[in-house]
């Protein structure tokens, strides 16, 4: 058997062993976390049940913007007409910026729980 074949054979054995090693460790780690997870899950399920009743169906910023829009209308009667007139011009969107959607950079959402 030539030297290069011998090296290749040795390498092949080591190689497949390392692949097994890596995936076996992953198997072990996943099994471990699954076990730990059971306890977390039980807690989670209790929390979920509670959250189902507490959770807002609309996010805070949207709520603030809607409330603001209403307040603006009520604050001065003459504004009511204005709003009616502007509504169909969708491209204009009124003054109240939809900036809140530009959440990509320089931003995180204010924690909902506060």
């Amino acid at each position: 058997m030539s030297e290069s074949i011998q090296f290749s054979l040795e390498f092949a054995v080591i190689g497949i062993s390392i692949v097994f090693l890596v995936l076996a460790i992953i198997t072990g780690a996943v099994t471990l976390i699954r076990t730990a997870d059971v306890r977390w899950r039980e807690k989670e399920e209790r929390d979920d049940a509670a959250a189902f009743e507490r959770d807002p169906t609309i996010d805070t910023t949207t709520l603030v913007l809607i409330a603001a829009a209403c307040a603006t209308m009520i604050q001065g009667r003459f504004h009511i007409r204005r709003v009616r007139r502007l509504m169909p011009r969708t491209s204009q969107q009124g003054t109240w910026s939809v900036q809140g959607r530009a959440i990509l950079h320089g931003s995180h959402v204010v924690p909902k729980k506060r």
Partner: protein
Amino acid sequence: METLLQFLHTGAFFNFTIGNLVMLVVGAIFIYLAITKDYEPLLLVPIGFGILVGNIPLQWGMNIGIYEEGSVLSILYKGVTQGWYPPLIFLGIGAMTDFSSLLASPRLVLLGAAAQAGIFLTFLGSVALGFSFTDAAAIGIIGGADGPTAIFLSSKLAPELLGAIAVSAYSYMALVPVIQPPIIKLLTSKKERLIRMEPAKPVSKRLRILFPIIAFLITGFIAPGSLNLLGFLFFGNLLKESGVTERLAQTARTAFIDIITILLGFTVGASTDASRFLTPASIKIFVLGASAFAVATACGILFAKLMNLLTKKKINPIIGAAGVSAVPDSARVCQMVGAQEDPRNFLIMHAMAPNVAGVIGSAVAAGILLATFG
């Protein structure tokens, strides 16, 4: 067996340092904060995972590491070192930013200028702490509270500090709701915080189309150094407002900015390997960054109070804090703080004006720093 040993030698065990471990923990914390606290997730997740990738120690010569010329990571990192990821992100931000609130209350723009004092005072402090002018300029921009601007400027002026500056900038931007409220409360009276501002008048489509063009010309002529950022920001905004290029604006604010954000965050994270990141300079940068945010917030608030002395239409000084940029977080913080005093006082729309003005302000400041020290 020799082969096995040789192979394992390429593995991480022999090269792993305690610094790498620290960085792995930092990366995990970033991901944890992003997922559980919803802090800047679109950047903290990529940066956090990038930190993990960058701190798997590698044997030099495998052509994998981000600092090895020709490796995949080093090629993707070129968008950072050559500085073209940030302008493209600004293009996308422009295509998603609505300047209406600014156009409705132009005088509030000045609050966005005042908060930039944080940049220049931090520059001063950095020089005092012994940093070179270029390094100090790059550190100062953390006070601009604007990630892409900070990455752009530091890639040009202080590439070796880029990782620390980027991580510092995004960390503090994530902590805006923690940092700003106490400062606001300290510097304002309850009476001031109760000021209600008149809702602004609607803005015409024509004004919204003209604004990016005119604002670009003004900033471009006075501070051409800001062209790389503001040229793209206002271009993106024109695509959005023109009414005839909606499909381009739509792509710019979705697929385009997402792709660049993924690559930017991931490679910035991967560039922070422990040997480059865990240095005394980084600690100084974090201290200076915190003070930069505090000073910027304070300057915005104090300037609002100054304006109240001079004009009849009173400004609620809370919204001065929004001048730091950190869009749209600091505007939300202002709303929140205002609502604690009066739940029916809707400051958020007013706060958006200094908020977006702050973005322009920091880019102008970056242009000035680049023109002077570049």
